[in-house]
């Protein structure tokens, strides 16, 4: 159960002359939830895109476990405008699930993110938050082994955020996937993650790692351990 899903060694990336990432080393174990935080423009999306295979790294090694099923919530919505809400899920499911399995899961997820009444709408008819939720549902709809989430709770209000977080964790327990989460909100990170990586510097590296040992269900923002981590993170942000 503790095989590495992902391991990164000495990875670096620059856009033209602008160095974004340098000397990134990272390992992800099966079933782990890891959050990446760091200030805006530090290179989180860049790192994610490299892991997702959407961007080439300049140097370094990146190994994904063989046959790993990856899913992703992109930072900018990437929905097919000519497909309905439900068909946007079907489109990605077809290579992973049977039609029957897929249909049941779609129903379940669209209910979960509150879009079941909009299953036949086109993305152009959704509000900002609704698009975001659709992205979220799509990522879960293929029963992934590893979930890459880039700001999945953006434009989503607290109530809904809690619902989505619950959906995520419930699935996590049932399906035993791993999660890499990018968020700009340290509170989200401490509530969800087993480990938090803080990205900083120019070029950025993983400046600090926090481990959280309290089980997800039992965490509260006011808990002492959690609170001190939040304080530490706040300090890091200020220094960056």
């Amino acid at each position, binding site marked *: 159960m503790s095989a590495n899903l992902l391991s990164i060694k000495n990875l670096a990336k620059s856009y033209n002359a602008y160095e974004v990432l340098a000397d990134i080393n990272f390992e992800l174990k099966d079933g782990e939830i890891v959050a990446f935080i760091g200030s805006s423009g530090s290179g989180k999306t860049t790192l994610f895109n490299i892991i*997702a*295979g*959407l961007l080439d790294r300049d140097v370094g090694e990146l190994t994904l476990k063989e046959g790993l099923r*990856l*899913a*992703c919530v*992109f930072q*900018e919505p*990437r929905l*097919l*405008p*000519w*497909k309905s809400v439900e068909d946007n899920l079907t*489109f*990605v499911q*077809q*290579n*992973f699930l049977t039609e029957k399995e897929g249909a049941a899961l779609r129903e379940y997820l669209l209910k979960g993110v509150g879009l079941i009444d909009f299953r036949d709408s*086109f993305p*152009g*008819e959704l509000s900002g938050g609704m698009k975001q939720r659709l992205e979220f549902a799509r990522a879960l709809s*293929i029963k992934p082994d590893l979930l890459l989430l880039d700001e999945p709770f953006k434009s989503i209000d607290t109530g809904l955020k809690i619902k989505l977080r619950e959906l995520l964790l419930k699935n996590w327990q049932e399906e035993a996937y791993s999660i890499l989460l990018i968020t700009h909100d340290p509170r989200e990170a401490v509530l969800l993650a087993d480990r938090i990586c803080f990205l900083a510097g120019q070029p950025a590296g993983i400046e600090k790692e926090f481990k959280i040992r309290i089980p997800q269900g039992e965490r509260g923002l006011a808990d002492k351990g959690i609170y001190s981590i939040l304080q530490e993170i706040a300090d890091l942000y200020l220094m960056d």
Partner: protein
Amino acid sequence: MNHFTSSFFKIAVGTAGVLAVLLLWGGLSSRFSSLILPSPLETAQVLIELLESGILVTFILITVKRTMIGYSGAIIAGLVFAFFLRYSKFWRLFFRPLITIMQTIPPVVWLVLAVIWFGIADDLTPIFLIFIVSFPVVFINIYHGLGNIDYGLVEMARFYHCSRKQIFFDIYLPSLLPHLMSAISIGLAFAWKSTVFAEFVGSSSGIGFALSVANNNLQTDRLFAWSIVLIVLMFSFEYLIIKPLKKYVMRWEPDVG
């Protein structure tokens, strides 16, 4: 405005434009001999004669058949080449100048080559010329359209292990369709014209041949009558086939203004 009055309005305005041209034509023609500029009435008479003689329908069928064959060929080749050249740098560099050459060689020279390649075959020369003339138009439009595709969506699909076929049918095609439709409707006019030109100089049947005979005999009224036939054909294609297709193809687009 309810649906009926609105579509009535549309047709009325469009017709007004055509009527204005007809009036202008009528007015102008009264000042010239019918050898120079026949009146709309004279033209209509010739049109009726042509219809009664049966030659109208025969020639239309011939020309439409040739155009369809040559043009579908051009569309398919245009699509294939556009994809091929967009995604293979080598073949892009290799073929790009050739397509420019193809675009530039004047039709008379193509006719010389057509005789060499196809000899006497009455159908092949026009079909070849249609292909040659409309292929670059279709190709360039599609190639350009491919450049406008939201690459983020393709990445997303690749990410989710979608096959080339899926990516083609569910991303490229829907993104391309608007471009494709406009490529097809721009190219169509050229396809028509090149069929007509090819028949004009190198065939013994079809509307172009009829135009050439009319021109040789200085029968300006026939020249105009056949042009009207062409215009009606073009309109039928545009409004009965291309327009509805366009609408269908773009049905997911939320209407703007």
